[in-house]
Every structure is written in C-alpha cells, then in structure tokens.
C-alpha cells in the first residue's frame, strides 16, 4: 500500500494543532514557530500532491479508501481531482501567510494571568481549520465531506468570537459585544445551511438505497450509477435534494441574500482570520457547488440555473455597490468579496468550460488577492487602531511601502490585466457571454464598480494631506514585507503565466461539463487556427472588397 498522501496532508496540521495547543504558556514564541513549521510542512505535502497528480489521468487520483461505519455505508474515502488539487494548494499556501500576518495578534494582554494561553489556542485553531478544509477538498464520500464541512465551524466560531479585532470606534466593550454577535451569527447561518444539507444527504442515501439495493454515500459510485442509468432520481426528488445541498453551499459561499453574516464576521475578526474565512473556508462552498451540485444533480442544476444566475448577478452588482457605501475598511473588503463570489458562482453555473475553468482559477486568485489586500489593511488597522476609512488620509506619504502593497492588492481586486484575477474574471465573463450574452454584459458592469470601490478606498486612506493621527505611522516591518511580497509575486506570476494551474484544472472541468452533458456554444464563424497566427493582408482584402483602389 502506498503512502497515504492525502491523509497525511490533513493529519499533519491536525496533529500540529494538538501539539501547538500543548505548548506551555511561557513558550509562546515556540508555539508560533511550531505552527509556522507545521503549515510549511503541509504546504510541502500539498506540493507533492500537485506533482504526483496527473492532469490527464483518472478522475479521482491518489485515492484512499477505508470502511468507517459499515452498517450505514459510511466510508473514509479520499481522492482529488484537478479542482481539488488547485484548492488544496491555495489553502496550504495561504496558511503560512495567515500565521505570519497574525504573529502578534493573539499575544495575551499583560493584565491576564500567566496560565492563560491565547496564543497557543489561536494558532492551534488555525491549523485545525486548515486540516478540516483540506479533508473537505479531498473527501469523495459525501457524508465524510459533510462532517468536516460542519466541523470547521467550531474552530472558526472561537477564532471569530475569541480573537476579534481590538479596534472599534466605540471602545473595547462594544468590540467584544459585536464580536460575539458576529460569531454567533456566523455559526447560526452556517449551521442552518448545514442542517438542511444533512437532510439532503440522508435523502440521497435513501434514494440510492431504493435504486441500488444498498444505500451509499460514495461520490464515485453514485456518479457511475448515474452515468450508466442504474440510479435515476425522480425529477422532484432530484430538485429537492439539489436545493438542500445548494442552500448550504450558498450560505457558505456566500450568495445574495444569504450573505449578511460575512461582513460581520470579517469586520470583527482579526485580518488573518478574515482572510481565513473568505479566502479559504468560503471556497469550500463554491468548490462543493462544482463538485456535488453539478455532479450529483445535473438536471436539477440545469433547472435552477436561471435563478442562480440572477442571484449571482445581484451578488456582483449589489456587493460592489454596498462596498462603495461602506465606512469600514474591512467591511468594504467583505462586500467586495461578496461581489467576487457572485462571479465565481456565475462561472460555475453558466455551464461553459471557460466559465468553469475561470471559476476555479477565480477561487485561487481571489484567495491570493484578498489575502494581499486584507492583510495589508490589517497591518494598517493595527497601527492606527481604527477600522474607519475616515480616520485615515495621506498614509502614502508616511508609509510608502504599505501604501504601495495596498495599491497592488487593490488593483488585483479590481482585476487589472497583468495580475492573476484578470485571467479568471475574463474567463468567467467570456464563458457567461458565450451562453447568455445579456448576463455577460451585466456582469461586465461589475468591473466599473470594482474600480470605484478600490480607488475610493485608496484615495481616502492613502492620498491627500497627511492626517495628524497617522503622521507617525511606521512603514511595513520586515515580517510584514515577508508576508506580503510573496503574495504579490504570485499575483503577478499567475497573471502572466497561469498555465500550470489551467493544465491541472482543465481536465476536471471537462469532466464536470460532461457530467451536466453540456457543450460549449460554437462560434458563428469558427476560424481555423491550427497553424496559429496567419498573416492578414488587409491590402488584398481591400482590393477584393472594393475592386481595386486608386
């Protein structure tokens, strides 16, 4: 039996979490380094997965399969497809930066007792989330996925509620109150979604039991049974089950109108945790739409497409407009993310290969760009102790490096060509336009609004006369530069050369397209481009068209 690579990628952070939590109170710094080391080790394992993964090979690779609870058909089945690999890479890549950015966020206040160990807890919880997210991306057993999909709420609840942003306009008591409100809201929203999904998961089990004799939660098995006609869900059953799954993922993603937990959670959490939520955890939702909703319920997906497209368009425009209207930097970024999730969902449900490849790349690129923007925003906020845009002004003058990195993060958020998010956004737009031109055009308007909210934010915080309150702000420290610089390098690198990623993703997307039995719309006048570029001679063209000139 080969080395269980997928299990190891989840087990390393899980064990690391336990080890970090066990570090004695006095050895705070050791805990930080341990957490960082574990996260880097996980990244290495993820890189090995990416290398071992063969893009043209089987649908699910590096599979592991063990019986878990035999009587209920529960199995511990892992396997990754290209989309999973891309997202595992994203997750494991971002965690070291999240840890690095949050290095001092959870240091105990001097007034607390010496036995209190918040730092250890903070980093252990982050690693725990990482482990659970990784399993969610790997699980090919639906129930296993469900368990980790829900379980990650627990550490996140504590991360939001326990380690919030200390900066608040109405003082620390108000901050604590808002924090616990945000944490509870986060938990209830996601729990509600999860419970409905649980009902659908059980429903699916019963349905498979009816058709196949024994019930199963195994995704590959169900896909195969669907493909060869053994499993036929009735139209109504399929639609109800689809809605159950989709509701949970739409809460997590989050899609309008289920989005209101995100601004609270991102606003109250510290910047690294906010990145963890929006860049990593929320991706499980969109990933699951692509893998479970489309794979398990192709006809129902088709049926629900019009409504979902409208919702995602609303998300795009509505999120962007609300971002323009925010007074709080972190909430602004949260609403911008809602707009971006609209793009991702749009890409998934337009059912074109450009749209779905774009959506997958979008998940990765949005993770990196939001991380860059949000972490720099976090550095800024921690310096001044305020999240209000109005409290800043002229920061560019006193902290040029901070302002520069903030601008690059912002430009990535508005999808400037040359940076990674442009590639994915354009693919989503083209994919949408190819099937539904009107949808594509409306979505394109989102790019104007994106420019508006990013540049307004930059203008109000970074330019203009230097405000007295920011006159003494120090520029980025070495640790902070080390956190941001690689992210920016990645944004540029993936903007110019996204091919390694598209190569992993493309075959998975093709499979997903064949699951839903869709083909890309053909162009009206396909031009043969086998020979690549061919010389265009407009002079000759002009002559034939006009019968000669002069």
């Amino acid at each position, binding site marked *: 039996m080969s080395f269980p690579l997928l299990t190891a990628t989840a087990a390393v952070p899980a064990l690391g979490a336990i080890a970090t939590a066990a570090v004695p109170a006095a050895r705070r710094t050791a805990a930080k380094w341990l957490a960082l080391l574990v996260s880097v080790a996980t990244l290495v394992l993820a890189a090995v997965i990416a290398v071992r993964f063969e893009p043209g090979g089987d649908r699910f690779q590096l599979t592991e399969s063990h019986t878990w609870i035999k009587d209920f058909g529960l199995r511990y089945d892992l396997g990754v497809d290209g989309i999973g690999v891309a997202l595992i890479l994203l997750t494991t890549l971002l965690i070291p930066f999240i840890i690095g950015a949050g290095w001092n966020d959870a240091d105990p206040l001097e007034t607390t007792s010496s036995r209190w160990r918040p730092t250890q807890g903070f980093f252990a919880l982050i690693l725990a989330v990482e482990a659970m997210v990784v399993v969610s991306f790997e699980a090919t057993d639906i129930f296993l996925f469900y368990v980790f999909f829900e379980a990650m709420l627990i550490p996140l609840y504590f991360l939001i509620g326990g380690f919030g942003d200390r900066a608040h306009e109405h003082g620390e008591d108000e901050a604590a109150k808002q924090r616990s409100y945000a944490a509870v809201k986060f938990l209830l929203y996601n729990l509600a979604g999860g419970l409905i999904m649980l009902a659908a998961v059980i429903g699916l089990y019963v349905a498979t039991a009816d058709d196949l004799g024994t019930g199963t939660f195994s995704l590959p098995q169900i896909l195969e049974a669907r493909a060869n006609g053994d499993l036929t869900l009735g139209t109504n059953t399929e639609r109800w089950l689809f809605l159950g799954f989709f509701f949970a993922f739409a809460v997590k993603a989050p899609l*309008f109108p289920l*989005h*209101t937990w995100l601004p609270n959670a991102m606003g109250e959490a510290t910047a690294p945790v906010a990145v963890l939520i929006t860049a990593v955890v929320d991706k499980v939702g969109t990933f699951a739409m692509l893998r479970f909703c489309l794979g398990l319920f192709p006809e129902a997906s088709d049926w629900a497409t019009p409504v979902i497209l409208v919702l995602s368009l609303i998300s795009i425009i*509505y999120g962007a*407009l609300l971002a*323009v*209207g*925010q007074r709080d930097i972190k909430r602004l970024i949260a609403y911008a993310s809602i707009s971006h999730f609209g793009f991702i969902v749009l890409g998934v449900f337009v059912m074109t*290969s*450009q749209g779905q*490849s*774009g959506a997958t790349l979008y998940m990765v690129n949005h993770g990196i760009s939001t991380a860059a923007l949000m972490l720099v925003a976090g550095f800024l906020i921690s310096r001044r102790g305020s999240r209000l845009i109005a409290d800043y002004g002229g920061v*560019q*003058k006193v902290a040029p490096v901070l302002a520069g990195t903030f601008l690059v993060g912002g*430009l990535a958020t508005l999808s*400037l*060509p040359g940076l990674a998010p442009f*590639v994915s956004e354009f*693919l989503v*737009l*083209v994919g949408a*336009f190819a099937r539904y031109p009107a949808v*594509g055009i409306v979505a*394109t*308007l989102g*790019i*104007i609004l994106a*420019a*508006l909210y990013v*540049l307004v934010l*930059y*203008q109000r915080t970074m*330019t*203009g*006369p*230097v405000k007295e309150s920011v006159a003494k702000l120090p520029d980025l420290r070495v640790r902070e530069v080390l956190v941001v610089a690689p992210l920016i390098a990645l944004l540029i690198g993936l903007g*110019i*050369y*996204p*091919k390694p990623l598209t190569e992993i993703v*493309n075959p998975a997307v093709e499979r997903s397209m064949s699951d839903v039995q869709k083909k*890309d719309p*053909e*162009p*009206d*006048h*396909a*031009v043969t*481009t086998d020979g*690549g*570029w*061919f*010389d265009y*001679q*407009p*002079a000759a*063209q*002009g002559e034939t068209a*006009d019968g000669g*000139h002069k």
Partner: protein
Amino acid sequence: MESLIGLLVAVPLLGAALLLCGGRRLDGIGHVLGTVLSFASFGIGLALFADMLGKDPEQRGLHTTVLSWIPVEGFQADVGFQLDQLSMTFVLLITGVGSLIHMYSMGYMEHDERRRRFFGFLNLFLAAMLLLVIADNYLLLYVGWEGVGLASYLLIGFWQHKPSAATAAKKAFIVNRVGDVGLSVAIMLMFTTFGSFAFGPVLGAAGETSEGKLTAIGLMLLLAACGKSAQVPLQSWLGDAMEGPTPVSALIHAATMVTAGVYLIVRSGAIFNGAPDAQTAVVVVGAVTLLFGAIVGCAKDDIKKSLAGSTMSQIGYMVLAAGLGPIGYVFAIMHLVTHGFFKAGLFLGAGSVMHGMNDEVDMRKYGALRKHMPVTFWTFGLGYLAIIGMFPLSGFFSKDGIIEAAFAKGGTQGLILGAVTLLGAAITAFYMTRMMLMTFFGEKRWQPDAEGNEPHPHESPKSMTVPMILLAFGSVFAGGFFAVGDRFLKWLEPVTSHEHGDPAYGAGVISGAALACMAIGVVGAWLMYGRRTVPVVAPRGSLLTRAARRDLLQDDFNHVVLVKPGEYLTRGLVFLDHSVVDGVVNTTAATVGGLSSRARRMQNGFARSYAVSMFGGAAVLIAATLLMRAV
C-alpha cells in the same frame, strides 16, 4: 529580429521593476537609469525599423509567439507580438517622444523627492504602451490598454498629497474603465463570433460575418476608444488629468496614450469597413469632440487645460478621419504622429513657462514672456504654427489630408464633415493665437503672490530645452517629409489600405479654404487679445464662455445624472442590506429568542409546581392511552 520585439517591452519593464522595487539605493541614479533604458528601447525600435526598411513593403510584418498565456478549452490566448508598419510607427513615436520627455523630466523633476518613482512610472508607461501597439491579439492589447491606464492613474496622481490630483487620477481611471467595458464586450463578441480574438483570424474573417455583428463589435470598440482618447461622451477626465506633472501631460495625455483609441480603430479597420453604421458613429463622435474640445480650449485660462481641450479636439480630427474608412486611415495616423510632435512640444513649452513662473498656470498672469524665455518662445511658437496648420509646417499637411478626406466622403455627409473640420481649423487658430498672445506678448501681468514671492521668469535648463528644440524640428519638418511623394501613405498602405475618394473640389481649393479659415481665427484672436490689454481677472463673459469654462457642463451633467443618483443608490442599498436583508434574519432570531424567554418563565424553581406539571403530564398521557384503547 523577432526576438528583439519582446525586448522592446522588456527593457522599460525592467526599468520600472528596478526603480519601483529598488528602494532608496537607486534614488541617486534612478532618473538616469530610467532615461537610458528608454533610449535603449528607442534604439531597439530604430534597429527594427532599419530592418523593416530593407524588406519588400508587403513582407515587412514580423510575428512571434512568446508563450501560451491562457489555454482553456476553446479559448486560447497567447502572448504574441506582431510588428508591422502601423505598429512600427507607434513604436518610434512612443519611444522617441518618450525618451525626449524622460530627458526633459530630468530637469523638470530635479527637486522632487519622489523622482525615482516618477521615472519608474514613466518606464512602466512605456512598457505598457509598447505592449498595446505590438500585441498580436485583442486580449493582450487589453493588458497594455489597462497598463497605460494604470500608469496614467499613477502619474496624474503623482502629487497625491494634493486632493485634487488624487481625485483627478481616480476619475481618469474610472472613466477609462467605462470604456474598458466596451473593449471587454468587443473581445467577447469576437470570441463568440469567430472563436478567436487574435488580429489575424478576426480581421481576416471579418468579411464573412453579418453586418449586425460587425456593427456591434465596432460600436463596442468605439466605446473603448472614447474612454482612452477622451472623446465625447467619455471626455471628462482629460481636463482634470492636467493635475499631473507637465511631462506626463505631454507624453501620456497628449502625444501617445490618448491616441490609443485611434490606433484601435485603425487597427480594427477590417471590422469598421464592414459596418457603415459603426463608421458613422465614429465620425459623429470625432466631429462632436473636435468642436467640443476646441470650444473648451477657447475659454480656459489655465494654459494646460486649454492645451488639453486642444488635444481632445485634435484627436477628434483623427477619430473623424479613422471613421471615414480607407480614405482616412493614413491621414488619421499621419496627423497622430505630427500631433505627437507639436503637442508634446507645446506641453513641454507650457511646462517650461510654469517652471519659470513658480508653477503658475493662469495665462492671465503671464504676458511678455518672450523676452525672458527666448528658447521656449521660439519652440512654442513653431509648435503653434504647426498646430494651426500654417504652410509648410507639419500640421498643415496632416490636417489638410483629413479635411480633404472629409470632403471626399461625398454627399451631404462629406459636406457637413468638411465644414466641421474647416470650422475646427478656424477655432484652433483662434485659441492657439489667444494662448500665444496671452503668454508671450503684451504687458507683463504677473504679481507677487500672497507670500510676496515675485516670479522671476527665466529660461529652463538644457535638459529641458534640448527636447523642446528637437520636438520643434519634428513639428516643422515631419509633415512635409511625410507628405512629399506620399512617403507616409506608401509606408502605411500595406497595413491599413488606402483609397482615394472622389474629392468634390480640387486639392488647391481645400487647402486655400483651410488657410483662409486659419487666418480668420488668427485675426479674430488678435483683435480680442492682441490689440487690447488682457484683464488679469477674467471677465464674466457670455453664457457660452461661462459654460465652456466649466467644460461645457460635462461634470455638472455627470454629477446630476450619475454621481448623485449613484450616491443615493448606494446609501439606499446600505440601508436595505442592514434593515431588510439582515433585518429579516434578525427578526426571525428575535422571535425565537422572545418565545423562549416566555417559555423559560415556567422554570420558577418551586418544586411543587414542577410536581404539578408532572402530574398533569402523566394524567394527559394516561388519558391519551385510555382514549386510544377505547377507540
């Protein structure tokens, strides 16, 4: 030779990377490095040009694919470069004028503490602009397109401690984004129509598709061009863009970037040729902007804003010519090149004046500067003669070509367009003469400012005057050089194709009419500003003057139609999100909470009341059991 094409972009890009990431170590030599790399890029351009001249005109195009950029099922975007005569013209203009302006900036920005960044941004601009003109597909062109937008944003807002500069920068970017939507949609339309967006396949197959599709693509490209080239209705950003340092105004907002829209239209000629309705739209936009910019240019007292109006108007000429189809493409590009020379020269002259006048921009506070700044006066004067179309300077030949082409369009349309271009020539002569008179002639009108510093006008240093002199050479001779023996036409024809229309009047008649219009403008301006003294405080002026000072109410229009409703909309949505979308959820939560706090009152702590409920419950259970039995 193909490998050199990539270097064109790579060299300035390297400069930008070094200067922007290099830190303070490069503060001392940053400006030299930036300038040297810019000249290096110019050198590469010249080498490629020499190579191109050695070939047969039909075989001059070079093409190379560097890497496969976005390979996705059915969607293949490559990073590929192509260099034909049209691109080559731009490459030389961009790197040539760009290098001169780098040199000029060494003097102009000498005392700026962020000089290194300035040169970094300039190099970034060069790289993006070169990418724009040598890209072999629309998507890569889009990258350059937004890249120049970014450079423009950074440079307009270079003095970002000034809120007006920061606002102007933001405005420029956002208005340009509106245009970018056009380019995006055009690319998507190409993809769904042709399955590709590379120049070769798309332009080659343009004739095979329906006119409706071509019209849609053409209109979207026009929207993009309007944004980048500051054409009505997306013109509002250009005037504010003058907040940037003057070399930036000269390079980006006069000579090169703003002409990208013209490049786009000429490059997409095959599409427009098949879509007469789109062409009409292009011509209308060009004609309207031509007059719009000229009128604004007449009313402004800020020398740079007046020049900005002029830029708008001159690009209107080019767009108009490009909209005429094969009869106009060559003249559009020719005017673009000559305009690049004289407008850059004029801006640099304006910068030189400001440099000597403590950054004063109000022409009413100039006057009689010709004695103090002879070099600036002569170079500015030559640029002036060129732009108003004085024979035999550059502007005469290029503008004349456009006017002839407009008349050659034929029919009523040709007459109207010809009249508009002639009227534009008259107004151009008027506002440029006004500028000349107010700045260099008449009495001195400057006074000490509030702190008592009186300006001491002086000639600028060599690094600034040399580029001005070189550009003045271009302004004087370029047009004649291009026109004699139809050199420029023959050079560009293999790419853009050319037709001679059927001119309704002889060439001499039209040239004469143009010169007459020019003379009327000059005399009119002299009567108003040369004969009389110019008041230091602007008179109230007529309704039109006041409107023109406010840029013909463009900002007021945008404010009322877009900004205010937008603000109300966002505010409304923030309220909606909080009280309705979130409110529904919070109300549900509150209801559940309320019910449970009612229910918990039953937990009163008295053991006996618990006992009662136990007995009650037991009684109900027994009763139910008995009842079920009975039934």
